[in-house]
């Protein structure tokens, strides 16, 4: 019978690998969009390659982000059963890892949500494309921190240790706010969320459908799709 520890190792490797691919693909699409946007200053071969690559990379990023979120949730589930619960909650490093896993999951779900809601046309809107790319960096950063904590639990060290030292973070200490501070943050966040909904409703933002015919004609950021041979720039 396969143990939960083995399954946890498997799902951990899967989510880390798949989400790394998703992140790399998002960065590739962002760079390709930039290349195509300023194609007059770029070598023609590079522009042609960017047009082709971004179509594949965009589709890959979406699929791998969805798969990565599924593996991330599976990894969290198997992790809860891989070790006895009382032992799990005894270790500050494991508690920090659980916290970071929760945050990474929320951020990656955010990425999947934005891509699902706006489609690949999100790349035609510069503000949304920048937000999407920054979100990918944040999600990958938190995921990397989670992986580093996991590496500490298994091998006792991580290649990201210099970063922890640089910021003076002691991963052997549980990071938590006082209950009142946490409640304040939660209340303020709920207020921000409600405010966002109110603004969206007032300006009818829920109805917006990003598409090439909206942003593209003004800003000339193409929708990244798998290019037909005839569409390639000669």
């Amino acid at each position: 019978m396969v143990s939960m520890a083995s399954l946890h190792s498997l799902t951990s490797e899967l989510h880390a690998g798949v989400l790394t691919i998703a992140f790399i693909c998002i960065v590739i699409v962002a760079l390709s969009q930039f290349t195509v946007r300023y194609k007059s200053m770029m070598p023609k071969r590079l522009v042609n390659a960017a047009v082709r690559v971004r179509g594949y990379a965009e589709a890959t990023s979406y699929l791998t982000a969805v798969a990565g979120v599924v593996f991330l949730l599976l990894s969290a589930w198997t992790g809860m059963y891989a070790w006895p619960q009382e032992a799990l909650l005894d270790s500050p490093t494991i508690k920090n890892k659980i916290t970071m896993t929760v945050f990474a999951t929320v951020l990656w779900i955010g990425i999947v949500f934005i891509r699902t809601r706006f489609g690949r046309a999100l790349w035609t809107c510069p503000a949304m494309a920048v937000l999407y790319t920054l979100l990918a960096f944040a999600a990958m950063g938190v995921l990397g921190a989670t992986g580093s904590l996991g590496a500490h639990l298994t091998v006792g060290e991580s290649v990201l240790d210099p970063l922890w030292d640089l910021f003076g973070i002691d991963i052997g200490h549980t990071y938590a706010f006082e209950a009142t501070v946490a409640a304040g943050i939660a209340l303020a966040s709920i207020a921000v969320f409600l405010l966002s909904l109110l603004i969206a409703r007032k300006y009818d933002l829920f109805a917006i459908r990003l598409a090439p015919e909206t942003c593209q004609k003004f800003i000339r950021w193409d929708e990244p799709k798998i290019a037909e041979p005839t569409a390639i720039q000669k």
Partner: protein
Amino acid sequence: MRKSAAFILVAIISGIAFALAPSLSAYEGGVANSDREAGCISPCHSVQSSAIISMQASNMTPDLGASVTITVTVSGGQASNSPMGVLLLSSFGASNSKPSDAGWTITSDPSGTTFNFNQVDSYAGSATFEWTLNAPAVDGLYALYARIAHGGGETYVGDYDAGLTFVVGGAIPPGPPTVMITNPTEDESVSGDLVVSATIATATEISYALLSIDGELVDNKSAAPYLWTIDTKTLEDGEHTVNVTAYDTSGNAGYKEVMMIVDNAAVDQEMLNWIYTMAAGTVAIVALLSLAVVVALMIRRHVMGKQEGK
């Protein structure tokens, strides 16, 4: 051209993923040689190992500061070709459990350094670990224990909890048994399940040993190891007296008391704070994300409005 672009894409992604993979890896390669407490060995090892552990010492009655060689032998167990680590301890407490906490000085370990945790990377059915230590500088009874941790499908753990008891600085005096409580230590803050451990030395033979907390009998044992697991949540938070009394076959009694501080409330509050922090952080991320999306759409609306106005 299309195939070339796809090939380049795959090559780039594979290369970067390969480069990033080590930092995200959950590879189980054991724990590096280091100084460690008896607490949770990362990752927490929980399944009882079938390995047989034995401990031997070159001298059980060393002079003050004299050199003692401890040999820990491990055989059998499930760790076929995976790491096998051994921890040399002065107690099984979550803190102050290293030999140095009891006054010992490690002068060499199996890897030529001075750590109390050492491992072999690929265990092949048996292994021997040898430490050389200088005995404490104060007369008394001192105990050393060994704990193993290894992989092999599960996270296995095993203890040599009988330990070795040393009489440092002199012979066992005739008279009542001498009791040493190795866990908890004096004024130690404890919570949750607690293992009370005692080492008893006597010139004759121990008949039985009693554990009492605040004067109330908890349990008795007639043979070593003298270990008791108690749930501190059954006690009120605050100071409590732990007493171990040993009787030898001649009817002589010896005892030792330590004060411990039960603090389950602080642990519970810390746990609640952690959960609140996770919840608040999650809500904050969702809120900030919503705000960022709204801002992005407002920027788009603003830019398009300006463009259409021209």
